[in-house]
């Protein structure tokens, strides 16, 4: 333990400027917008320009969160062999830890008694300036202000739950102002005459006015606002995200942080006036409020960082050792190739690729970001507005709509939708009275059915961008057509060629084309799950990637595009056919699009692929089932498929699938280094040929998407796991959907950000290790060219290692340079005959990295 001072000086040195202060403080807010497009984000993005280790402790003080897992967690890991002494000693040497620290770290770890849990500091929101209101004035401002503020926010932003709308078309601040001015009935305390008057002023002036009343000392203003933000970060984050991306709402609203702050502070002043009269003393004038010196200090358990790193390295070392073996004795699919398949880099596709290759040695698979370079906004036939179908860092400039083929009727709503609709209607008085009886009895029957035999006919309501295989995509741009929102409608020919060429080049598929190339996107079905978007493809901004796969196949099959490709030096033979497909990672089902008109030979290959895929899906289901505790350890393929399909449809299942849980690796390289390697669904695999990229340009553009997407996923899991109450959304079970934007606990809680407990409970918080198959200098140079990406690695938010394609040497980024790592000290990876043989040993925990295919 050592005391460390954190630069949380409550008083700011500079003169207070509202706009700048708000902009600065907004950095500490979690970045989570509407839950319908859940995008994995780095929860501590405000700290990203600082080293990991300092940041977690500072965040711990700021948010009142745990910095690492509890000490006992590492003790357990040590006993189970998931944290090795040898790794810990290596970390000591690497960090040049002083001797007493080494001894202490080892002694505590080896102790047979579990260490009791150390409480984290309380967090600024609970232990700062504002806590004085309750402690010395006896006014619990938060519980007075927040219920009404949340009600106002949720009512104003509501996207379709309430039937009576907020009666104003102005921005939030003006709307609330008009409401309290117009209403004859009181809305305490906003309707107090002194407070109503304030609404005539612009929001900035009101904030300053309130701060003067509440705080009085301008050096403390920023700190006060910071604590206001931290007291309910969920709603503030939502407001900030909506302000920055108004398109994320279906019904647009004008709101920003200033407006909400103005209303909240007005309420605080109003309550103080009500409770303590107009003459109450502002915080800045009280002796007891000045944040004491001690609270800027707190204790850092310096062993935790060491243990955590050793814990991570125990896993990394297995992986790196295995990769060296793989590189030295490479294996790959045997030629001639039967079929080729592109998958998303997603860790959930890691195992299905392994099974496909095990079943058909001639099958070749690639991993590429699941949007297949098709950067568009997609509007399905039944969608009210277009949604973004490409990763966060990519800006979508194109719009593609789903259209009806001739003479087809628009599909009517499914019976389950109709039922949901009717039950919603019963929330009104008269209709409710008329229908509650009959519908009530009917819902009793439905309840029984849904419990006894869950199936998708239950109110499983598919989300946006599910695609109907029989409709057409309006993919080709006519002239220079632009949509009202300013998107290009469809792609021009050269733009199509570019996109197809990008994917093929990045994956280095420029010759030896198979007759059938399947582009497998992925999505995930779930029922009764507000976080459904978090289960879909991260590279498609939390949507299923079906439109992308389909669009890619259509483009790549176009003869004119093929011509354009051959001009770029990629000769796709006429006999080759691209087929779009979607893999439902929850249900283990694959749908194929546009499979009409195959030649007999293509058809034969495709049928072969389809059969192999069916088998692979069943085996994959078995592998996934071992993680579900309620499923028996030994389970047959048919039972396993039934189980995962039941899960996706069951109302009572908070774990339709485990999503990215246990993710820890990104491997960028040729398939041979991961071929036949059992990575336990922990790796995101990107295909990349180092030999075709000597200047690192391709790598640079790959990293541009990989680092923020994979890093965001990984860190969100890590932090949601370390402190599920602060960084995560807590348990899912009491969640209540609020305003259709997010979930809250009960009706008066703040919006919850991050991942619910059910998604992260089996996750080991390990930072992402990105391994690139490339020479160290080239890889480092490629990374350094993008300072925003380099920040991730430089500050330790992810690990960056390379494996040289020529010497098979491992290099690791450490303190600004790549250092060579000696892998010979680590034991060789164990081997197994195949995945099934390995899994037959039975375990629910993480398995080590294993080389499959018998002894080597």
């Amino acid at each position, binding site marked *: 333990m050592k005391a460390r001072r954190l630069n949380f000086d409550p008083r700011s040195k500079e003169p207070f400027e509202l706009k700048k202060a708000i902009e600065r403080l907004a950095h500490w807010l979690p970045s989570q917008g509407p839950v319908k497009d859940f995008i994995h984000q780095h929860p501590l993005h405000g700290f990203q320009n600082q080293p990991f280790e300092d940041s977690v402790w500072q965040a711990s003080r700021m948010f009142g969160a745990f910095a690492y897992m509890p000490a006992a967690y590492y003790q357990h890991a040590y006993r189970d062999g998931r944290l090795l002494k040898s790794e810990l000693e290596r970390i000591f040497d690497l960090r040049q830890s002083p001797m007493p620290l080494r001894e202490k770290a080892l002694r505590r770890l080896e102790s047979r008694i579990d260490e009791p849990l150390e409480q984290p500091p309380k967090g600024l929101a609970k232990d700062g300036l504002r806590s004085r209101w309750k402690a010395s004035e006896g006014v619990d401002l938060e519980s007075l202000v927040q219920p009404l503020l949340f009600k106002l926010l949720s009512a104003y932003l509501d996207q379709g739950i309430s039937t009576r709308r907020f009666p104003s078309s102005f921005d939030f601040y003006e709307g609330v102002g008009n409401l309290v001015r117009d*209403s004859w009935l009181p809305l305490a305390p906003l309707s107090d005459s002194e407070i109503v008057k304030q609404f005539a002023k612009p929001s900035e002036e009101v904030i300053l006015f309130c701060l003067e009343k509440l705080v009085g000392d301008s050096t403390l203003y920023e700190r006060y606002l910071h604590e206001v933000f931290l007291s309910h970060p969920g709603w503030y984050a939502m407001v900030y995200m909506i302000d920055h991306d108004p398109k994320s709402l279906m019904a647009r609203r004008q709101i920003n942080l200033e407006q909400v702050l103005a209303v909240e502070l007005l309420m605080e002043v109003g309550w103080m006036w009500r409770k303590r009269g107009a003459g109450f003393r502002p915080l800045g004038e009280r002796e007891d409020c000045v944040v004491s010196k001690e609270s800027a200090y707190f204790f850092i358990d310096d062993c935790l960082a060491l243990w955590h790193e050793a814990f991570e390295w125990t896993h990394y070392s297995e992986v790196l050792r295995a990769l060296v073996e793989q590189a030295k004795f490479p294996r790959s699919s045997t030629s001639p190739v039967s079929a080729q398949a592109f998958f998303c880099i997603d860790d959930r596709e890691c195992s299905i690729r392994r099974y496909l290759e095990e079943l058909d040695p001639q099958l070749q698979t690639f991993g590429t970001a699941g949007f297949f370079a098709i950067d568009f906004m997609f509007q399905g036939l039944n969608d009210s507005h277009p949604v973004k179908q490409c990763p966060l860092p990519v800006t979508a400039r194109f719009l593609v709509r789903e259209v009806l083929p001739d003479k087809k009727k628009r599909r009517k709503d499914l019976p389950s939708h109709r039922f949901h609709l009717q039950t919603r209607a019963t929330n009104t008085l008269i209709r409710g*009275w008329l229908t509650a009886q009959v519908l*009530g009895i009917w819902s009793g029957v439905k309840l029984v059915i849904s419990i006894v035999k869950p199936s998708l006919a239950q109110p499983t309501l598919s*989300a946006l961008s599910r695609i109907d295989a029989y409709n057409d995509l309006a993919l080709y741009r006519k002239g220079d057509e632009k949509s009202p929102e300013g998107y290009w409608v469809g792609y021009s020919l050269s733009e199509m060629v570019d996109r197809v060429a990008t994917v093929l080049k990045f994956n280095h598929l420029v010759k030896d084309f198979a007759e059938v190339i399947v582009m497998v996107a992925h999505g995930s079905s779930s029922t009764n799950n507000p976080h459904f978007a978090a289960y879909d493809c991260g590279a498609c901004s939390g949507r299923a990637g079906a439109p992308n796969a389909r669009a890619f196949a259509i483009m790549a099959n176009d003869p004119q595009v093929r011509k354009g490709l051959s001009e770029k030096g990629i000769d796709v033979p006429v006999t080759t056919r691209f087929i779009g497909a979607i893999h439902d990672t929850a249900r283990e089902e694959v749908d194929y699009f546009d499979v009409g008109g195959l030649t007999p030979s293509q058809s034969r290959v495709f049928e072969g692929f389809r059969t192999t895929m069916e088998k692979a899906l069943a085996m994959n289901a078995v592998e996934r089932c071992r993680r579900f505790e309620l499923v028996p350890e030994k389970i047959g393929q048919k039972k396993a498929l039934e189980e995962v399909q039941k899960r996706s449809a069951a*109302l009572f299942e908070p774990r339709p699938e485990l999503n990215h849980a246990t993710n820890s690796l990104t491997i960028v390289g040729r398939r041979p280094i991961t071929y036949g390697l059992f990575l336990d669904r922990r790796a995101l695999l990107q295909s990349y040929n180092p030999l075709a990229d000597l200047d690192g340009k391709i790598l640079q553009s790959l990293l541009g998407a990989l680092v923020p997407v994979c890093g965001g996923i990984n860190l969100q899991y890590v932090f949601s796991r370390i402190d599920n109450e602060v960084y995560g959304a807590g348990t899912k079970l*009491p969640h209540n959907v609020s305003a259709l934007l997010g979930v809250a606990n009960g*009706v008066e809680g703040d919006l919850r950000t991050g991942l619910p407990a059910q998604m992260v409970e089996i996750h080991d918080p390990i930072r992402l290790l990105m391994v690139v198959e490339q020479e160290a200098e080239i890889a480092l140079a490629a990374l350094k060219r993008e300072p925003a990406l380099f920040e991730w690695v430089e500050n330790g938010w992810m690990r960056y290692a390379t494996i040289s394609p020529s010497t098979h040497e491992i290099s690791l980024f450490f303190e600004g340079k790549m250092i060579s790592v000696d892998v010979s000290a680590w034991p060789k990876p164990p081997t197994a005959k195949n995945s099934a043989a390995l899994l037959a040993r039975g375990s629910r925990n993480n398995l080590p990295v294993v080389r499959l295919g018998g002894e080597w």
Partner: protein
Amino acid sequence: MIFTLHTLTASLVFIPLATAVLLFIAGFRREKVISNLALATTAVNSLLTCTIIAIWFAGGREPLDLFFGPLVRIGDYHFDLSFQIDRLTVVFLFLTAFISGIVVKYSQYYMHREPGYNRFFVNTLIFIGGMNLLSLAGTLDLLFAGWEIVGISSFLLIAFYRDRLHPARHALRTYSVYRFCDTGLLVGAWLSHLVWHASPTFSDLASPSLQIMLRHAGEGPLLGLTLLTLLAAAGKSAQFPFTFWIPRAMEGPTPSSAVFYGALSIHAGAFLLMRMFPVWNASIYGPYIVGTLGFTTAVISTLVGHAQSNIKGQIAYASSAQVGLIFVELALGWEGFALFHLSGNAFLRCFQLLISPSIIAFVLRWQGLGGGGVKGGWFSIDTKLPRRWVASLYVFCLCEGYLEQMVRTVLWKPVCWIGAAVGRLAAGPGTIIPLAVLVGIGISVSLPVGKEWGASVLVALAVGLSSGALASWGKSSRAWDMATLAGVCMAGSIYLFDHEAAVGASLVIGSNFVGWGLGRWGLARLTHRRPYARLHNYQGMVQWDGLGSFLVFIGFLIIAGFPISPGFVGEDLLLHSTIRIGSWATCLLALVFAINGLALCRVFVRSCFAGSMKVPMEWNWESSQTQHTTPRPFPPSLPERARSALR
């Protein structure tokens, strides 16, 4: 035949409660064992229910009376154990068996890996037992027992996430409404003693002789009975003016919200009204009052529900509005239709709550299918109304009809005001000594003056002490003492009035003493760890001392006269005695009963729930079954350690 029915019905109440106790004591760790036991119990419950229904049908669907014999018989007072089976019972038994069966099955998977898995099923089973007792009860006293059991299990499930602030606070709020409205039943029972000079069974209520007695009693007592019944029903069924608690009760896991506030518990009020139908229907004003209350609720809840922008709140208000309509139907005398409506509403709301998490996906799809709703425009049915009307109406909805403020101002504030005054008076050194001295002086002064005076002083003391306990912000043990003493004072005063109340008074005083001891033991464990614990902060003892919290909880139940303590019968006996004293004593007794229970519950919630200590997620689930690390509390010592380190 009758013998079998006796056993069947008794086991219907006994088996769920016994399984709950078994689960709690055994403290099984393995989920399978817990949920299978619970599931087996619900299966047995359903089987028994079906058998009973079948027998009832076979017997020509006539109301059946099952008399088990008196539990207590003192003088003209007797507490009978008697059950009644008629159409109403059968419908409620069926609903309970069906919905609880489904929800237990649902929760078997839904609650997987949730800390408190066992607790959830224990509470649900207690609820099932209470609900069965409520439906079967043949007398008002027995119904009250079931009523209390349902109330307490509801309280515990709202506070299921007990280390969080909002669940703890809202559980207390709900309990305070329940507790206040329970006085309706208590005084109602007393009033029925007054009218019939006995505690009649429900089947007797409609008999001609009792109806004649009812008419003889005059409109006054009849109206009183109607209002009291309605008070109890309105509290439980979230009717005007108590509607505000129901959305706030949605803090537990979704299935528990579905079973309580969607399906069963919310209809208990309507059940009570149907049971007491012959009584309030005999009054000229009765149907009008019930109908008006139901209609008012229906209108307000619908208005407020429409402006709710969260899904569970919306369903809660919709459900409350429909129960309002059921009240109206009852007032019109459509009992059969009301029963049908009630069952439909129960299934529907239960289902709606269970599927509420899918609302986002649903609305997205629905809008795409041209279902209207949000399309970017500002759709409102109010466009024709003038602007100020719209705004006022919206503010009315946003403030949920000002019901909470109203109830607070009328009921809560005066008690707090008295309490604060008492608190100032009694603020001396030590805790129990000045209070005991005060009580002693009260008695010694009063004895020579005359028993009426003495008793009056004691009653005043009781009211003062209990409100003092409720408004106390200081040490929890002090509030505990005050509340206990208030109960003792109350019993003592009634004894002074009427020496025949000796048995009742000694039962109450005895159980108060036991409960006090248990509670003080638990609270001592709290102050041992946190010497500066005060009621103005939530202490969260349950996080590090389960036994201590349990002791406080049991102490609270015993003093508050929960049906596990002899105090339950004692209170009833005392009430019986007040017939000879006067209605003012009854009202005060009921008031003290309500405030006291509330004060004790508040002490329990504030010292045991919503702690500031953080507990991380469990890891390595299987092994954590055996090696559980208990968190160590040390928040106050941080700055001190910092100081010493800096030196």
